[in-house]
């Protein structure tokens, strides 16, 4: 009898192709929209989070200047940091893992007939370690090179491509204005950052070489500080601030003439933004699910009205109400299932396509897939079943007279 019921239901589905197609379509649209939107939303949120994580969440950046609190022209140009400040941070603040000087400048790099404008960074090995940037070819700076300020450099992948193509750059010599430096290492490709700049278009020099040969001063424009694992960056920030105020002789009541940026703050701000975006997308998706649900409801209600006579006929030839209901239930289940499955396939397909185009990870959330499917399924069944139940409760003659 179960098989017979399923056969009856399938027969009824194919008997009214139009109605069935519309029902399925309602479910497909609802399910597909939710899955596509939430998957894309979660993918982009994940992308942003991983971008921030690449920068390191235990990193503080100490810069001269009052940052945001400073109005234009309110203060004379803030004093730059020196290598002594870097050493002081490392020596006096226990929860700091390491600190590294950082300076940057834009320069033309020339190799043979190739030239490319790039970002020259003056720093040392501690910086590469702090932001966890491995060297894939060649080596890092030697201590002696850092001490004496030798003309050696480490390339980023983009600059290597621009100057050397795919050939091995190690041991070659690059010209930067008046400076000639030997390539000793190649950094791992980080990939384009989501903030729109290419982190791999870079050339690193030992800080002393950089100060002497590129900027010509002992000033350091930024200090990278990495805090020990498990230690509070907030605490480190407070301690560094106190230390710097002391070193820079800032009196009580006076504003800082430097600022400390916390990657964690930036990370939480960004993930806050993406969470809002995901929430927004989910809301839009929920609306489309609702619209899909109303569509299903409409078609089911209309079709049951239309089919009340059919129910009457079936009752008249001897069907029990439960048999008719079972048929309608199976019909609703089959339609909802077909719609739900097509919706999942379509939704995941759209999400995969969009993820590919937006270059974000494609990570479908099984919970969302299941949830969307279940919702449409339940809507399909409720609105297929309950109106039919009402009809099946009528006296057969009333159902038959129904126009």
């Amino acid at each position, binding site marked *: *009898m179960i098989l*017979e019921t399923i056969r*009856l239901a399938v*027969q009824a589905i194919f*008997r*009214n192709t139009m109605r069935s197609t519309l029902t399925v379509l309602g479910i497909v649209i609802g399910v597909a929209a939710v899955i596509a939107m939430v998957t894309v939303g979660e993918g982009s949120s994940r992308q942003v989070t991983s971008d921030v994580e690449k920068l390191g969440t235990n990193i503080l950046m100490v810069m001269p200047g009052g940052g945001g609190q400073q109005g234009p022209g309110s203060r004379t140009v803030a004093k730059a940091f020196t290598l002594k400040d870097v050493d002081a941070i490392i020596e006096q603040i226990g929860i700091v893992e390491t600190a590294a000087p950082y300076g940057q400048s834009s320069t033309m790099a020339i190799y043979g007939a190739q030239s490319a404008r790039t970002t020259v960074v003056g720093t040392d090995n501690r910086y590469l370690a702090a932001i966890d940037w491995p060297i894939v070819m060649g080596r890092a700076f030697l201590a002696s090179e850092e001490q004496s300020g030798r003309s050696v450099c480490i390339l980023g992948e983009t600059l290597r491509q621009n100057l050397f193509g795919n050939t091995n750059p190690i041991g070659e010599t690059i010209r930067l204005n008046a400076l000639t430096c030997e390539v000793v290492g190649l950094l791992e490709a980080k990939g384009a950052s989501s903030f729109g700049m290419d982190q791999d278009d870079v050339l690193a020099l030992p800080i002393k070489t950089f100060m002497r040969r590129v900027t010509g001063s002992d000033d350091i424009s930024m200090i990278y500080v990495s805090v020990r694992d498990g230690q509070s960056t907030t605490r480190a920030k407070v301690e560094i601030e106190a230390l710097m105020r002391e070193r820079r002789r800032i009196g009580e009541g006076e504003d800082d003439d430097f600022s400390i940026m916390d990657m964690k703050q930036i990370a939480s701000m960004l993930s806050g933004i993406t969470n809002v975006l995901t929430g927004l997308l989910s809301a839009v998706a929920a609306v489309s699910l609702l619209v899909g649900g109303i569509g299903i409801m409409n078609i089911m209600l209309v079709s049951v009205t239309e089919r009340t*006579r*059919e129910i*009457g*006929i*079936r*009752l*008249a*030839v*001897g*069907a*029990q*109400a*439960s*048999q008719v209901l079972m048929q309608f239930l199976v019909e609703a289940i089959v339609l909802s299932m077909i719609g739900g499955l097509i919706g999942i396939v379509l939704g995941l397909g759209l999400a995969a396509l969009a993820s590919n185009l937006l270059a974000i990870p494609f990570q479908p959330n099984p919970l969302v897939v299941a949830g969307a499917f279940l919702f449409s399924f339940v809507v399909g069944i409720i609105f297929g079943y309950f109106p039919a139940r009402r009809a099946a409760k009528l*006296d*057969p*003659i*009333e159902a*038959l007279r129904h126009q």
Partner: protein
Amino acid sequence: MAAAIPLIEFRDVSKIYGHGEAEVRALDGASFKIAEGDFVAIMGPSGSGKSTAMNLIGCLDSPTSGEYLFSGVPVASLDRDQLALLRRNYFGFVFQGYNLLPRTSALDNVELPLVYKGVGRAERRQLALEALAKVGLKGREHHDPSELSGGQQQRVAIARALVGSPELILADEPTGNLDTRMSREIMEVLRDLNEKDGMTIVMVTHEEDMAEYAHRLIWMVDGKVERDGKPRHGGSGR
């Protein structure tokens, strides 16, 4: 024979639609008996309650008061599922408006009662083909109702009514929508079912010509049986 329990017995049956001012007494204390094997025509002016009587006999509707005994069993004592079983196993319906399932072949329509009877597929097909042949629709088995004429549709409906070999065929104005030639064909099919297969037939009609095919005529006025006897020309066609 006289002591036998009648197939159908109405005792003072009333059916009232609506309430208060809008109350309509479709049936007002009707009493009659119908014996097994009979061919009864119910006639009367419109609004006389003949269709209501028919629907009550077929358990498509329930009486407001009075008692309806089917084979001596009070129908009021049966629940909805038992009534469905009664319709399934004892009744075959032929409606004025055919009431075939749309977009469904003649064959599938005729098979429908057997589906609910739990008859296997092959046997169902066989019985449905036989029933369609009996009403002269051989070769039309796979046509949809929309591809058939009114007479053909009514014959499909008759095939559906008789396919389960019911005790009783209830025909509500079976020729109401048909021309005279088709009406006669339908009536001949019904008469054959009564004479050759021994099925009891109760038919509502407003055409005296059609009532002539019956053995007995119940004339109803205002929800009551006014006359009960032989058709004017003695019945069984002419």
